[in-house]
């Protein structure tokens, strides 16, 4: 069974939207509460490589895309979640699953103010120590 079918089968109704921009660019949306389950499937079971995550402040909420690369086929899967509470965006951390996510979650925490619940080491990565608390440079005013 190919990887796309496998993801659709395992996650089933948890996939809110599925979009194939091209054969190598697959985007799908899930509810934020399912992120650990989806990451476990892609990273642990399907042996994908976590490339990076990207957070964006959108009018609808804080959007995070988790990008996974299936290096054997060149397919690139981006898992989309929308955190609707823009004042207090929160999502479960995926760092307990593997260390490679630690830095990017710290980065999104300090630049966008997204709280990663269960992150073992949530402290500043890029911003200076003097940077004021509660100011998030990538949030839109």
């Amino acid at each position, binding site marked *: 069974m190919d990887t796309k079918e496998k993801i659709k089968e395992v996650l089933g109704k948890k996939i809110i939207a599925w979009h194939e*921009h*091209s*054969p*190598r*660019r697959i*985007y799908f949306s899930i509810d934020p509460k399912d992120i650990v389950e989806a990451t476990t499937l892609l990273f642990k079971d399907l042996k994908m*490589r*976590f*490339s*990076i995550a*990207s957070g*964006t402040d959108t009018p609808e909420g804080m959007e995070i*895309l988790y*990008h996974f*690369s299936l*290096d*054997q*086929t*060149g397919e*690139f899967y*981006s898992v989309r979640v929308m955190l609707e509470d823009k004042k207090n965006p929160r999502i479960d951390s995926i760092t307990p699953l*593997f*260390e*490679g*996510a*630690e*830095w*990017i979650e710290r980065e999104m925490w300090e630049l966008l103010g997204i709280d990663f619940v269960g992150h073992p080491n949530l402290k*500043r*990565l*890029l*911003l*200076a120590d003097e940077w004021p608390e509660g100011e998030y*440079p*990538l949030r839109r005013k």
Partner: protein
Amino acid sequence: MSHKVIVPIGPYHPLQEEPEFFQLYVEGEKVVDIDIIIGYNHRGIEKLAEAKHYDQVAFLVERICGICSSSHPNAYVLAVEDILGGEFNMVPERALFIRTIIDELQRIHSHLLWLGLAGHFIGYNTVWMWAWKYREPVLDMFEMITGNRNNYAMFKVGGVRRDIKAEDIPIVKKALDELMPALDLFRGAVMDDPVIQARLKGIGILTKQQAIDWCVVGPTARASGLSMDVRRDEPYGAIDRVDWNVIVEQEGDVFAKTVVRILEMYESVRIIRQCLDKIPSGQIDADVKEIPPGEGIGRVEAPRGECFHYIKSDGTNRPVRHKIRAPSFMNVASNKVAAVGGTISDATITLAAVDPCYCCTERVAVINKSDNAKVMNGWDLIKLSQEKTKQLKDEIARKGI
């Protein structure tokens, strides 16, 4: 009249590239923990890109890194071309070949730069001088083709900005021919030298499982047995028109990382030679006018690994979001496992083995765990590393190997 001036070059010196600060905790000789502190040179380029139009962003991202300065614009234009259509194939064939030639020339100069520094760190200053000497002709090629040794301004959405002139092609070929004996020399000097083998084998090991868990990329991953290379996995430019191999080693130690980089330079020469032979004539720019709303991802294999760019467009002439992830972002973090457990005399070369940059190891502080006193700085560590090589050399000479 004498007046002593001390110029401190701290971790926040903004002129040097990739300033990182490694704080090593040691017990006796052994490294027991490491703090990696980055962000000294955070310039807010992602935010800045939102205020530039699509043509300007290519120049902006070129300035992220002075060593792999074509990788970022390359990944950026691929991301924008991804928005234009998943099957966007308007980029003229000739432009694709020029992109790959620039990409591979850059890999050679970057790997030679690293090789020189690695040589210096272990006390092989001849390797340092020679590697940088043979890097110069590569930079001369860049100057001839692009007008600049670094920051080439070659990439634009839909093509490249300038052509490679027909009369330049034999000059590039000749420079590559002259580079081959130098590469043979380095391969021999590193791979057949018992001292270098004794010095670099078995230190700074990143196991395959650690490489997976820390999501490392590029030569750091390939030296740990992970067969991944964006050029093969998702070909871009003209890379799929030529024959070449992905270099993979299994050991994960500093020696394996060195071997991967040396052998990759041979592959780059192969790729450039074939590109120069096969380059078709024609246009070099598709003249893209408008970027539609949407999102795109571009990734290229920079000398240090996968370089990732994500662009979100709302149909205006500026990106609404531009996420950039350089390969070192993933690789540097893995020092947490590669350096811990080793000795401090191996720390410099281990930290340098992921190929961050010059300044990185200069910002090392060693702290004695028992009383938290600072005991060494970066230069002391390099000296220590060089002394260990010297001891090994003497030992091997005594045994008469």
